[in-house]
């Protein structure tokens, strides 16, 4: 393989570039990024970066020394526009074309917006530029902040806004935020963090419209309030829309790749074209699309191995893991929780949210399926490791089973 193009210059794209070199690829390596910035870490954007505890240089994922080692051509501030039918040419929106023997798709996801005219004071939080703009809006004394969406971005942003002294209301359409991730029981417990931290949480509250005042010719004006489906009007100077993200697959429309809420890949991150792999938020690997930091760092190793081998020689099903920092507490979750799993508190108490935290395990038929910790990093790591080991054993057994079936068919 002589030329590989990595489309996407964020966490997964950088890790893919690293893996290409680490696995011996010595050809032309081009990394294309839609944003003008070199790869940076997103998790601090809603936390330390907003509060001012983490300065911009600390977000950098790489340095000059590594850049020299990687020996990649960086094309930043250029969006991919199309992939040709054979998956060998990446076309950029400025008309440039990049000929490749292999393509790594790492175009990530974009923040969902609310419909309606654009108003100043309304923010999303996905990119560094988003975070810079929101930070600028938060430095001028106390503001009334309404955060729409009680997911991780919403909760972390709300927490940061409270820390900065703002008056914060979180609006969540569902009856409970994070119920899909944590299950109702633990989601209920974690929702208590908002009140403990000093933010209001309104659940079961749909947003019908954002109200604005000022110039209207260009649809402009400044946001003044958030209108809820029950008619309530929440006055707001700043609104943060944290209603999830959608995979950046628009540029692949018309390519032969199969798309369905992400780029469809097998368990080895390989798409319907063997010379094209996908990693990170944009990839639906083996039926799952995970917007987790750990997936973006773990998938590239396997994806690159399969790309260089030109077919799937290794599969990856990393144990899902995510964490969130809210109101001075650290929440960590690992595993695959199923509906109906029972929850058992192993350490601490969820009643005393702030007081030392707790460790909870999810169980089904006598087996641990997942683990949740609030401020209990050490025991959490222990259970997470056990889950990883169990998952590896299961995969081994599965492979063994497939082998036996093949052998039975062959005989």
């Amino acid at each position, binding site marked *: 393989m002589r030329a590989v193009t990595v489309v996407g210059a964020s966490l997964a794209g950088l890790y893919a570039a*690293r893996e290409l070199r680490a696995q011996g690829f010595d050809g032309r390596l081009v990394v294309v990024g839609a944003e003008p910035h070199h790869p940076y*870490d997103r*998790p*601090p954007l809603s936390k*330390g970066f907003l509060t001012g505890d983490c300065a911009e240089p600390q977000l950098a*994922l790489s*340095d000059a020394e*590594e850049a020299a080692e990687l020996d990649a051509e960086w094309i930043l501030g250029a969006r991919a526009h199309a992939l040709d039918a054979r998956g060998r040419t990446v076309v950029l929106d400025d008309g440039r074309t990049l000929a490749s023997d292999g393509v790594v798709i790492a175009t990530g996801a974009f923040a969902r917006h609310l419909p309606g005219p654009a108003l100043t004071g309304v923010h999303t939080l996905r990119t560094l530029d988003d975070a810079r703009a929101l930070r600028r809006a938060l430095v001028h004394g106390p503001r009334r902040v309404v955060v729409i969406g009680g997911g991780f971005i919403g909760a972390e942003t709300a927490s940061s806004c409270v820390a900065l002294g703002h008056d914060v209301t979180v609006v969540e359409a569902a009856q409970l935020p994070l119920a899909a991730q944590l299950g109702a029981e633990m989601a209920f417990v974690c929702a208590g963090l908002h009140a403990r931290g000093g933010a209001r949480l309104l659940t079961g509250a749909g947003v019908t419209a954002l109200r604005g005042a000022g110039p209207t010719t260009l649809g402009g004006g400044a946001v003044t309030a958030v209108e809820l489906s029950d008619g309530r009007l929440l006055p707001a100077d700043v609104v943060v829309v944290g209603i999830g993200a959608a995979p950046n697959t628009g540029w692949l429309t018309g390519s032969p790749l199969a798309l369905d809420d992400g780029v469809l890949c097998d368990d080895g991150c390989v798409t319907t074209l063997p010379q094209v792999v996908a990693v990170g938020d944009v990839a639906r690997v083996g039926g799952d699309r995970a917007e987790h*930091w*750990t997936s973006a*760092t773990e998938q590239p190793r396997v994806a690159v191995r399969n790309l260089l081998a030109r077919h799937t020689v290794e599969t990856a099903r990393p144990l899902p893991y995510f*964490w969130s920092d809210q109101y001075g507490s*650290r929440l*960590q979750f690992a595993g695959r929780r199923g509906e109906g799993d029972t929850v058992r508190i192993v350490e601490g108490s969820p009643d005393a949210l702030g007081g030392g935290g707790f460790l909870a395990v999810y169980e089904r038929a006598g087996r641990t399926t997942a683990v949740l910790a609030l401020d209990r*990093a*050490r025991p*959490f*790591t222990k259970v997470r*490791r056990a889950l990883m080991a169990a998952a590896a054993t299961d995969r081994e057994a599965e492979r063994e089973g497939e082998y036996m079936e093949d052998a039975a068919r062959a005989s």
Partner: protein
Amino acid sequence: MIAVCRLEDLPAGESVRLDTAPPVAVFNADGELFAIDDTCSHQDASLSEGWLEGCVVECPLHAASFDLRTGRPTCLPARRPVRTHQVYVEDGVIHVRLATAEEGSAA
């Protein structure tokens, strides 16, 4: 000089965090004592809560690993070392001598 705890109160495989500024983590790695800065150089997490294996501690947040002998990261995502500090036992009590800003850095 900071007295940490009695030697028998820090069995092999265990660690303790000192509330110094910045905080320091002291480890008993299979009988050998080490002290390093407690905060992971990648992102805010306490290495004293990490996973200890031989002379390497893995950060509990993102699995960055550090060699306790040198403070150097042994894998990503950490890229910068953490400071190391001298540890010694006197009259059965573990002590740490904090490195100055210039010392202790493996960089």
